C-alpha cells in the first residue's frame, strides 16, 4: 500500500488545523472557539455545499444515472442502521444499540465536505447530485432507530409514538432543511446565482473548513475522555463500522458504475456517522440511551479516522479498482 496519499492528506491545512485543535485540548490549552461561531461556520458550510451542489446539478441536469445514485443512497440509509443494530446488540442494551445504529446509518456533512476538498485538490470531478444523496441519507436512520426501540421494547412501552413529531425531527431538522433548501436555490438560480454568491460560498470555502476543523478537533478531543468509560468495544465498533460500511459503499459504487469522485463521496456517506442531527433526535426520542456513547463514537473516533486515514485510504482502493 502506498502511504503517500495519506501523508499528503495529512499535510493539508484543514487536517492540520483539526490536529491542532486536538492538541490544544490534550495539552489543556485554554483555546476556545466561541459557540456561536461554531454554529455559524457549520451553517455556512451547509449553505455553501448546498448551493454548490445545486449549481452543479443545474448544469448536469437530472439523469437516470443520478436517480440510480440517489436510490442507492436511500437503500444504504435504510440498510446500514439495521445491520449495525444487530452487531451492537452483542454488547449494548436496546436503547444504546438503537441510538448508535441511527448515528452510523446517518451521515457526517463535514466528513463529506472534507472529502470534497480532497477531490478538488486532486482535481477529480464529482456530481452535484452527491449533495442531494447526502441530504437523503441524513434522516431515514432516525426513523429506523426509533422503530427498532419500539419493536424491541414491545408491550412495555405504553406511550403512543408521536409520528408527526418524529417525522419533523427527522426531515425538518435544521441541517437537512438548510442543505436541501440551499440545494434547491442553487439549482433554481444556476450560473448567475452561483456567480453572485461565489465570493462567499466558493472562494472562502476551504479557509472556513480549516477554521471549523480547528473547532472540531477541540471538541472531538474533549470527547475522547468518554471513550475510557465506554470501553474498547465501542472504539473497535467505531472504526470497524467505518471500514465495513466503506467497503460496502465502494462495492455498491463499483456495481452501479459510479465515477471515482462520486464513489469516494458515496463511500464517505456510508462510512461516516452523525454527531449532530441524530444525537438531537435521540435525546428527544430515546432519552434512555447515553449520549456520551453515541457522540464519543461518532465524533471522537469515526470522524477523525475518516478524515485523516479514511479519505485517502478509500480513495486509494477506489483508484485501484477503477483503473
Amino acid at each position, binding site marked *: 500500500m502506498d502511504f503517500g496519499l495519506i501523508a499528503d492528506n495529512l499535510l493539508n491545512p484543514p487536517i492540520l488545523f483539526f490536529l491542532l485543535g486536538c492538541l490544544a485540548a490534550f495539552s489543556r490549552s485554554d483555546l*476556545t472557539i466561541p*459557540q456561536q461561531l*461554531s*454554529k455559524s461556520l*457549520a451553517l455556512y458550510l451547509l449553505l455553501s455545499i448546498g448551493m454548490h451542489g445545486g449549481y452543479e446539478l443545474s448544469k448536469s441536469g437530472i439523469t437516470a444515472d443520478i436517480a440510480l445514485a440517489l436510490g442507492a443512497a436511500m437503500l444504504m440509509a435504510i440498510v446500514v442502521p439495521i445491520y449495525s443494530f444487530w452487531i451492537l446488540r452483542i454488547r449494548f442494551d436496546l436503547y444504546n444499540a438503537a441510538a448508535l445504529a441511527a448515528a452510523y446509518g446517518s451521515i457526517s456533512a463535514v466528513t463529506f465536505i472534507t472529502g470534497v476538498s480532497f477531490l478538488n485538490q486532486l482535481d477529480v470531478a464529482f456530481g452535484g447530485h452527491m449533495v442531494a444523496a447526502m441530504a437523503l441519507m441524513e434522516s431515514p436512520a432516525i426513523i429506523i432507530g426509533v422503530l427498532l426501540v419500539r419493536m424491541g421494547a414491545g408491550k412495555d412501552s405504553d406511550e403512543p409514538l408521536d409520528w408527526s413529531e418524529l417525522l419533523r425531527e427527522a426531515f425538518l431538522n435544521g441541517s437537512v432543511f438548510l442543505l436541501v433548501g440551499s440545494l434547491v436555490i442553487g439549482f433554481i438560480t444556476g450560473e448567475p446565482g452561483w456567480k453572485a454568491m461565489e465570493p462567499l460560498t466558493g472562494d472562502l470555502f476551504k479557509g472556513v473548513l480549516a477554521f471549523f476543523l480547528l*473547532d*472540531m478537533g477541540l*471538541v472531538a478531543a*474533549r470527547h475522547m475522555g468518554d471513550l475510557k468509560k465506554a470501553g474498547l468495544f465501542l472504539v473497535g465498533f467505531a472504526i470497524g463500522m467505518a471500514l465495513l460500511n466503506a467497503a460496502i459503499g465502494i462495492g455498491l459504487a463499483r456495481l452501479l458504475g459510479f465515477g471515482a469522485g462520486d464513489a469516494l463521496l458515496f463511500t464517505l456517506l456510508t462510512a461516516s456517522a452523525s*454527531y*449532530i442531527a441524530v*444525537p*438531537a433526535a435521540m*435525546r*428527544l426520542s430515546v*432519552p434512555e440511551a447515553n*449520549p*456520551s456513547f453515541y*457522540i464519543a463514537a461518532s*465524533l471522537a473516533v469515526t470522524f477523525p479516522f475518516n478524515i485523516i486515514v479514511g479519505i485517502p485510504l478509500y480513495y486509494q482502493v477506489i483508484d485501484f479498482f477503477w483503473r
Partner: protein
Amino acid sequence: MRAVKRIEIVIDSLQIDRMVELLDDAGVSGYTVLPNARGRGRRGVRSGDEITGALENIYVMTICESDNLDTVLAAIRPLLDRFGGMCVVSDAELMEA
C-alpha cells in the same frame, strides 16, 4: 408583597418548548428562561460549549401561587422523570404592581 412559591427547573435544552407548554397549561402567570446552562447531575457532566449542542441544559424559573404549587409540580414531573433534570422549590414574596 404577596407570599408565593419560586420553582426552579434545570432541564435538557431541547425540552424547553414542552416544559413551557406544561407550565402554561398548569396556569402559571409567567416564567423566565435563561439559556446556555451547563452542569452535572445524576446523568453526569453536561457541558454546552459544543459543536453538537448535545449536552446543553436550560434554566427555567417560575413564580406561582402557593395554592397552585402542587398542580404545577404534578404537571412537570413526568417530563423530568423521562428526560432527567432538576426541580427545587423555595419561598418568596412577590412585589405587586
